[in-house]
């Protein structure tokens, strides 16, 4: 029987709560999926910056299609891959709003390749949160542009054969080459230390936007235990062991103006 120390229920002792920028929904995500962690980090950053009411989110197509249910901010739902274009349309007519897209790897790196590259190239003042879990989640675990060599998926059942199916795309590295990009980094959500670093990066990305310093993107290495067919804890290890070597954690573009940011 677990006993609760009554002292910790006092408001003054509270150290952790649901971010204001969250609604009080329970998410539909699978056990062990890191979408929930990524959502929370975004909500915390919006809270800290006090921009919840000025924020407009653009949801993608994929598992996070219902992201709009979980954030207590205005939201629109884009067509598959088109979130950066939709965000461009919003930001250009409401330049003082904080506009972000939340996109998976199929959405951003496959069908939405043109939209993401040109949004970055134009230096659109938007923030992109890019969830890379090396697989298509919602449609049932098919090969993604980020699927690792040899990785088995429902559409690469023998493992991704690079001779036939090519190599995974490293989006952060590609986008970092763009002059319009102010801040492009990759973080991982596989352990608490990395999650804290991811949080800092997300905050920096939003700060980049509100200060008009160009396109910002945070790529987050994420899990998909259901479609990888492994347990949640094992999935976290799989990110560290298999994904990080292919998708190194790092800062690929930090413009000097962004580097000087203090907040």
């Amino acid at each position, binding site marked *: 029987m677990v006993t609760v120390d009554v002292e910790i229920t006092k408001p003054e002792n509270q150290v952790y709560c649901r971010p204001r920028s969250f609604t009080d929904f329970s998410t539909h995500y699978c056990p062990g999926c890191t979408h929930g962690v990524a959502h929370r980090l975004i909500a915390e950053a919006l809270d800290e910056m006090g921009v*919840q*009411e*000025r*924020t*407009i989110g*653009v*949801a993608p197509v994929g598992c996070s*299609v219902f992201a*709009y249910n979980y*954030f*207590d*901010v*205005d*939201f*629109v*739902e*884009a*067509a598959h891959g*088109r979130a950066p*274009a*939709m*965000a*461009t*349309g*919003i930001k*250009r*007519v*409401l330049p003082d*709003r904080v506009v972000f897209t939340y996109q998976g790897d199929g959405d951003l790196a496959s069908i939405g390749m*043109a*939209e993401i*590259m*040109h949004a970055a190239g*134009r230096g659109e003042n938007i923030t992109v949160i890019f969830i890379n879990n090396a697989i298509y989640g919602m449609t049932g675990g098919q090969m993604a542009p980020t699927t690792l060599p040899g990785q088995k998926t429902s559409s690469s059942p023998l493992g991704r054969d690079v001779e036939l199916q090519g190599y995974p795309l490293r989006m952060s590295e590609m986008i970092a080459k763009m002059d319009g990009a102010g801040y492009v980094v990759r973080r991982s959500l596989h352990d608490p230390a990395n999650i804290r670093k991811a949080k800092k990066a997300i905050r920096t990305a939003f700060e980049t936007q509100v200060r008009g310093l160009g396109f910002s993107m945070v790529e987050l290495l994420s899990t998909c235990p259901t479609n990888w067919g492994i347990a949640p804890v094992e999935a976290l290890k799989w990110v560290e062991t298999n994904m990080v070597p292919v998708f190194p954690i790092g800062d690929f573009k930090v413009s000097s103006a962004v580097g000087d940011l203090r907040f």
Partner: protein
Amino acid sequence: MARQLIKGNEAMAEAAVRAGLEAYFGYPITPQSEILEHLSRRLPELGRAFVQAESEVAAINMVYGAACTGVRVMSSSSSPGVSLMMEGISYIAGTEVPCVLINVMRGGPGLGNIAPAQGDYFQAVYGGGHGDYKPIVLAPSTVQESVDLTVLAFDLAEKYRAIAMVLTDGSLGQMMEPAELPELRPVVRKEWDWAVTGAIGRPRRILSSIYLEAHDEEVTNLRLMKRWFEIEKNEIRYKEYYLDDAEFVVVGFGTAGRVALSAVREARQMGIKVGLLRPITLNPFPFGVLDELSKRAQAFLVVEMNTGQMLNDVQLAVKGRVPVEFYGRPGGVVPFADEILAEIQRMTTSPLSVVGDPRKAWLERMLAVVK
């Protein structure tokens, strides 16, 4: 304001600006690029948004985003580019946000050519994108009408939270005519109760075309249909010429309608009792007036720059009461008035039938001439 000599494409672009256009997103394609070019200079000059997108796919999704904020937003393209936009058009319809589109049609299918055509009637009128929705479609036949209908398109789109498309063609886009432009209206942002603008002092809003529960999607489809009947009740527009005592009726829209008018005038001088009905709203289509005309006319002649698309709607209205003949020049060919006059003479002097597809007889006549 005074009339000025102005090109159709530039006139539509400037009309949009004066109607309060706040954002334009587009991609170059002939024969509509002057719209994009005009706005690339004009909108930044007024502090409004202009983006030359990476594709028509991106352009329509930028329109979608801006439309969700409730501002007056537009894109323009020509046939192949509009095909690329169909995904976004369906999403915009499903989300019930207003926007204006201009299609300066050219010859097709495929890459086709850059000559004026009307082959996109089906795509425009019947929606083109997936799912159940109906866009408002306006068809001008002069540069002045291009101006007026562009302005009207914004009002209708907003009024019904719908897509309003100006369906014109390469000849109207490229020709210069005297036209009077409206005054430049100041932009007044309206406080829509649906727009996504940031939840400042109000509960947050979501704009989406997703209704995962079939019941909710059905309710949405029924709402769109109900709104459509409202549009049909209020917004049907057409122009009648010499119809009061007409025994024969020519039906044509846009450029084809304009050329047909010349033919009808010549026929009248020859004493033939023929008139012209020129639909201005292709959607909603003037079924009612055609229905009435079919009760007193001896025959109809549909003239189009395609292989017979609006023809289907005319046949629906006429219900087989009297023969409906067809004359079309597809692929970027514009008919001459004397060709249509010959068709009018044929209609008034030959035995006609209500049986069969009038396109078959037309095709035989065409194949004898066009090698």
